[in-house]
C-alpha cells in the first residue's frame, strides 16, 4: 500500500536540509527495523502455533515476547510517519487558505507532536525506572519488564526531534526557503 494519506497533503514534500538528510535515513531505518521485528514476530507465532498443534508446545513465553517486541517495533514507526507528513488531519476547513497560513498551522501542529512525544518519552522512562526498582519480571521467561518499556523510549525521543524539525521546516517554508 503506497499509503495515500500523505498524497492528499496539499503541500509539496519538503526538500530536506542538511539536518533533515541526516534525520530522514535514521527514521527510515528505524521504521524498517520495526517492520522486520514484526516479520520476526510473525515467524515466531507460526512456530508457536505449529508447535502447539503438534503437541511439542508453543515457543516459551510467546505472548510476552510478542507484546514486548511489538511495543518496541510500534514505537519505531512514529518518527518516520511524521517526517512524511502522514498524520491524520482534517484539511477540509483550510483547503482554500494561503499556503503561508497553512504552514504556520502545521508548524504549531508539529510542535504539539514534539511536546506530546517528549512527554510520553519522559513518562515511559519514569515507568521503566519504577519497574526496574520494583524488579518486576515477566510471567513465563522471568525477563525484567523494564527492558521492554525502556526500549520504547528512543522511538518517542526521535518523534520529538522529528516534530521540532518539521515545525522548523514549516516555518522556513512559510518564508519560502528550506531548512
Amino acid at each position, binding site marked *: 500500500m503506497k*499509503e495515500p494519506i*500523505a498524497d492528499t497533503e496539499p503541500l509539496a514534500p519538503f526538500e530536506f536540509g542538511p539536518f533533515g538528510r541526516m534525520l530522514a535515513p535514521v527514521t527510515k531505518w528505524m521504521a524498517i527495523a520495526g517492520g522486520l521485528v*514484526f516479520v520476526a514476530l510473525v515467524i515466531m*507465532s507460526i512456530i*508457536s502455533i505449529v508447535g502447539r498443534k503438534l503437541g511439542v508446545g508453543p515457543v516459551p513465553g510467546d505472548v510476552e515476547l510478542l507484546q514486548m517486541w511489538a511495543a518496541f517495533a510500534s514505537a519505531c514507526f512514529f518518527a518516520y510517519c511524521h517526517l512524511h507528513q502522514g*498524520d491524520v488531519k482534517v484539511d477540509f476547513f483550510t483547503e482554500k487558505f494561503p499556503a503561508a497560513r497553512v504552514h504556520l498551522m502545521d508548524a504549531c501542529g508539529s510542535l504539539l507532536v514534539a511536546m506530546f512525544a517528549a512527554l510520553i518519552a519522559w513518562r515511559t522512562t519514569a515507568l521503566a525506572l519504577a519497574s526496574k526498582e520494583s524488579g518486576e519480571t515477566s510471567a513465563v521467561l522471568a525477563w525484567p519488564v523494564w527492558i521492554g518499556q525502556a526500549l520504547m523510549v528512543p522511538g518517542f525521543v526521535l518523534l520529538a526531534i522529528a516534530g521540532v524539525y518539521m515545525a522548523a521546516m514549516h516555518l522556513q517554508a512559510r518564508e519560502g526557503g528550506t531548512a
Partner: protein
Amino acid sequence: MSGITVGFLIFAVLLALLVVRVPIGIAMFAVGAGGYVYLSGGDTLPLLNSLKNLAYARLSNYDLIVIPLFLLMGQFATHGGLSRALFRFVTAFIGHYKGGVALASIGACAGFGAICGSSLATAATMGQVALPELKRYNYAGSLATGALAAGGTLGIMIPPSVPLVVYAILTQESIGKLFVAAVIPGLIAVIGYMVVIKILVTWKPALGPEGPRIEWPERFKALLEVFPVLLVFVVVIVGIYDGWANPTEAAAIGAAACGVLAVATGGMRTQGIIDSALGAAQATAMIFLVLLGADMLNTALALSQMPVELAAWVKNSQVPPLLIMVMILAIYVLLGCVMDSLAMILLTIPIFYPMVMGLDFWGLNPTDKSIWFGILALMVVEIGLVHPPVGMNVYIINRLAKDVPLRETFKGVIPFLISDFVRIVLLLLFPAISLVLVRMFHN
C-alpha cells in the same frame, strides 16, 4: 460544572483544534490531558501518573497487535501482485457479460478486501490493476472510477477490517464475532454494487461493453492462481472464529501466508519486503497515534462521567430508540465529510456506545446489540470514504485515472452511494442479517 458541561467543553476545544489542522491524535491527547487536569482540581500529578503507562499499556496490548499484522499482510498482498491474480480470476469468469470488466473490478476488490483491512489500500491497489483494463474496453470514465472508488470500501467492509478491530478493543467485544458478523453485510455490499453496474449498463449499454470471453482451461488456471488467497481468508476467519487461533495468531498466519505467496508467486524480493515494512510502518503509526490520543481523551471523558450522564439522559428522554439510532448514523455521515473513518470510530464510540447499549432495539440482548451496532457503524463510516467533499477513495482513484475529471468520478459514485444507503437501512431494520452467522457458529 457538571460532567456533561465538561464533556461538551472538551469536544468544543477538540473541534477547534481539528479545524486548525492539529493532527487528530494529538488534538485528542491535548484536550484529554487538559480535561483530566481540570477534573483533578488543577493538580497535574494524577495526569503524570496515568501517563506513565499510556504508551506501553497500549502498544503492548495483545489484541491491538493484530493491526500492524493485518497491515503487513495487506502490504505483502499489494507488493506480491496478488491483486493482479484476483482481477484476472474474476474477469475470466464474469468479464464477458455486459459491464463485465466493471463487475470483475468489484469482485476483485472484494477478494482483495478479504486479505486487506484498509479501504484506501484496496482502492489504490485495485485501481492500478483495473483502470487500464477498463479503459482498454472503452468503459465510461464515470463508471470505471465510480465502481473502483466504491469497490475500495470493500477493503474494510469485508473482514479483516481495521476499524472493526478498533471497535472491538474499545467495547471489549470479540474480534472474531465481529468479523463473522461482517461477512454477510459485506457480501450484500458486493451484490449491491454489482446490481448497480448491471442496471447502469442495461440502461446505457455504451457505459460498459462486454469484456473478453475466457475459455474453461484458462479459467481453471486463473482459479489455481487465486486459490491460495481464498485459503488465507478462510484460515484467518475460521481460525479466529473456531477458536483454534486467536485473532493475533490468525493475523500472523495471514501475514506469513501472504508473505510466502508474494515471494513465491509474485516475485517479491528484498526491495519489496523493505517497501512492505515501510508501508506497514507508516499506516501503523498513523493509526496508533490516533489511538494513543483517543486513550487519553477517553480517560478524561470517563472521569467527567459525561458518557454515562448523556446515556441516562437519552434513555429518559422518551425519544424512540430507532430515531436516536438514525440520528447517530446521520452524525456519522456528517462527520464523514471532514474526518477519517478510524478517527470517527475512536472519537464517537465512547459516547454513542453507552447510549445504544442503554436503549432497547427489538429486544436484542447486549452482545447482539453491540455486534449489530458495530457493523452498522462500520458501514456508515465507510461511506464517508466515497461521498463528497472528502471522499478519500474518490481522490485516489481519480488521481490514478488521469483522464477522468473529478466531477465525473463523483457523479459515477452516486449510484453506488444509493446502494450503500439501501444496505444501511436493511441492516438497521433487520439486525438478523448481521447476527445470523454469529448465532449459527456460536453454539
